[in-house]
């Protein structure tokens, strides 16, 4: 069995599973945020009316909660949702609730790794499509809707069809100034935005061995944009070190068997990658930066679970150091712990000196909700994950998806720019 099959077999109490088997898997961790949490409460209300008891969760210690989409509260309704979420966690005895304005908080997927909320080998589900991110730690990490999350909260398990696995063998270390974001945009551009649909996208090879845990998180995060059920990387010493530094102990590393089967194997020469962008209006509408259209950008946005981890900020700082931005530029670290390290290591000074506005962790503008959404005809280069019509604001705004280095270089010139042109 491969890693996903082994995790799902263990979690469903079976000696083995194969693609297309339907299993009810025991869940190890479940996450909800300020959109899916109130959504789950609506499901609970409906269940109560149907006579299904909702007074107790299966195990509140396995549940954790983030405030990220509408913080700082965008308006009265979002403020009320945060109050609802706080009451929810209080009433049901959920202790792990990362609250805006109370120390560590941030985007749920970022907290999943920054706070070591998920362990290798776990079945981890979250009420958000980019839950796939956390597969980089060697977990089966999958996004679900409100009804499914409500089911998990009450029953501790959920059904899955065991996915086929596409294995992406990545050869060699990424060149300087080329990031994991470039590589995953390249992959999505080749397989299409439904190219991984219903499947696992597993990454391996020397390109992964050379890659930091944070870069692997970027790869797995974007598997959602190829329609994948989950993204995963087999855990290695780097994952052990990463989680141990964050207080995790007794790690149980699950890896695939030597005769593991994959339904398809793809090979990519990561050592030959170039900076890549996705043009409006789909993450698979890619081209290399040197062939990108000549557009006058209005804004550069460095934020989100995809593009505002510490490594992403460090990469942006390399480009922005000693330079000034030519267009509106916002940098929003994805969690307070990252914000703090950026302060301690001088990154915030580099950003502010460059003229950037540094904001608090939020999903706000990435999902077109608040905190810097785009006007009609505005054009943004962004380290986020999606660029569907209206994704970051007005339905006639445009978003180009890029790596933090490309977004930073473009902030300096006002045009889509290869970071190597500034070196």
């Amino acid at each position, binding site marked *: 069995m491969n890693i996903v099959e082994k995790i799902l077999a263990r979690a469903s109490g079976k000696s083995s599973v194969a693609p297309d088997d*339907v299993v*009810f898997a025991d869940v190890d961790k479940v996450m909800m945020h300020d*959109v*899916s949490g*109130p*959504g789950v*409460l*609506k*499901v609970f209300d409906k*269940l109560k009316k*149907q006579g*299904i008891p909702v007074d107790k969760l299966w195990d509140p210690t396995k549940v954790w909660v983030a405030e990220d*989409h*509408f913080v700082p509260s*965008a*308006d009265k*309704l*979002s403020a009320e*949702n945060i109050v609802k979420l706080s009451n929810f966690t209080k009433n049901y005895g959920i202790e792990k609730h990362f609250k805006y304005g109370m120390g560590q908080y941030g985007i749920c997927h970022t907290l999943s790794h920054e706070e070591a909320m998920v362990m290798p080998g776990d079945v981890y589900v979250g*009420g*958000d*499509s980019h*839950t796939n991110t956390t597969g980089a730690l060697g977990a089966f990490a999958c*996004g*679900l*809707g*409100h*009804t*499914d999350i409500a*089911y998990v909260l009450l029953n501790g398990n959920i*059904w899955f*069809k065991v996915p086929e696995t596409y294995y992406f063998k990545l050869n060699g270390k990424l060149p300087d100034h080329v990031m994991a974001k470039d590589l995953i945009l390249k992959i999505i551009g080749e397989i299409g*935005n*439904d190219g991984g*649909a*219903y499947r696992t996208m597993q990454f391996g090879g020397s390109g992964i061995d050379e890659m930091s845990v944070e870069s692997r998180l970027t790869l797995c995060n974007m598997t959602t944009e190829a*329609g994948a*059920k989950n993204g995963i990387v087999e855990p290695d010493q780097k994952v052990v070190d990463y989680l141990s530094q964050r207080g995790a102990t007794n790690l149980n590393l699950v890896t695939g068997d030597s005769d593991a089967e994959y339904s398809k194997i793809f090979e990519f020469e990561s050592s030959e990658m170039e900076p890549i962008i996705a043009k409006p209006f*789909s993450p698979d509408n890619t081209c290399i930066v040197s062939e990108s259209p000549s557009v006058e950008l209005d804004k550069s946005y460095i934020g989100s679970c995809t593009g505002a981890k510490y490594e992403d900020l460090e990469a942006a700082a390399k480009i922005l150091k000693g330079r000034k931005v030519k267009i509106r530029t916002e940098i929003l670290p994805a969690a307070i712990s990252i914000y703090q390290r950026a302060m301690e290591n001088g990154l915030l000074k580099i950003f502010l000196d460059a003229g950037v506005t540094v904001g608090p962790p939020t999903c706000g503008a990435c*999902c*077109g*909700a*608040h905190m810097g*959404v785009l006007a009609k005809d505005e054009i943004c280069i962004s380290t986020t994950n*999606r660029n*569907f*019509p*209206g*994704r970051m604001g007005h*339905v006639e705004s445009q978003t180009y998806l890029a790596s933090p280095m490309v977004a930073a270089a473009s902030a300096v010139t006002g045009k889509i720019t290869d970071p190597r042109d500034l070196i």
Partner: protein
Amino acid sequence: MKGNIIKYARDNIDTDVIIPGQYLKVHDYTELATHAMEGLDPDFHSKVKEGDFILSGKNFGCGSSREHAPIALSHCGVKAILALSFARIFYRNSVDGAFLLPIEIDQDAYDGISEGDEIDIDVSKNEIKNITKNQTYKMKPFSEIIGKIIAAGGLFMYKPDQD
């Protein structure tokens, strides 16, 4: 199950156009319904009728896990989506929450069915009849688990132990 078709002859209708991100804070289903398809077709809410079906191309519902998407459509009265393929979270949200039926169709049905056509879906026969044009097409049968959850009336009504 009979209904009339609203056709969007395109692929990749994503959750950001089905229900834009600014409405994710809204959990009042009636209000959500007034914003359904707003990112693609601002007239949708005024033209959709109880019992209508939407017909579209590949990868319907791609993007976010927001259950708001099938909720908004079902609270407009949409009973089924007929599409060449579906994104996975939209598909399972539709079924597990018992909001609407995601029906996978083939190219013949996609090409043959037009805006406004009256359609009769017979899930027991995996058949779609086009009453307006007097044509019949096949639908892809539901997988066993999906068929059982639909028959039960959603995931919470489904009892896996009784299988």
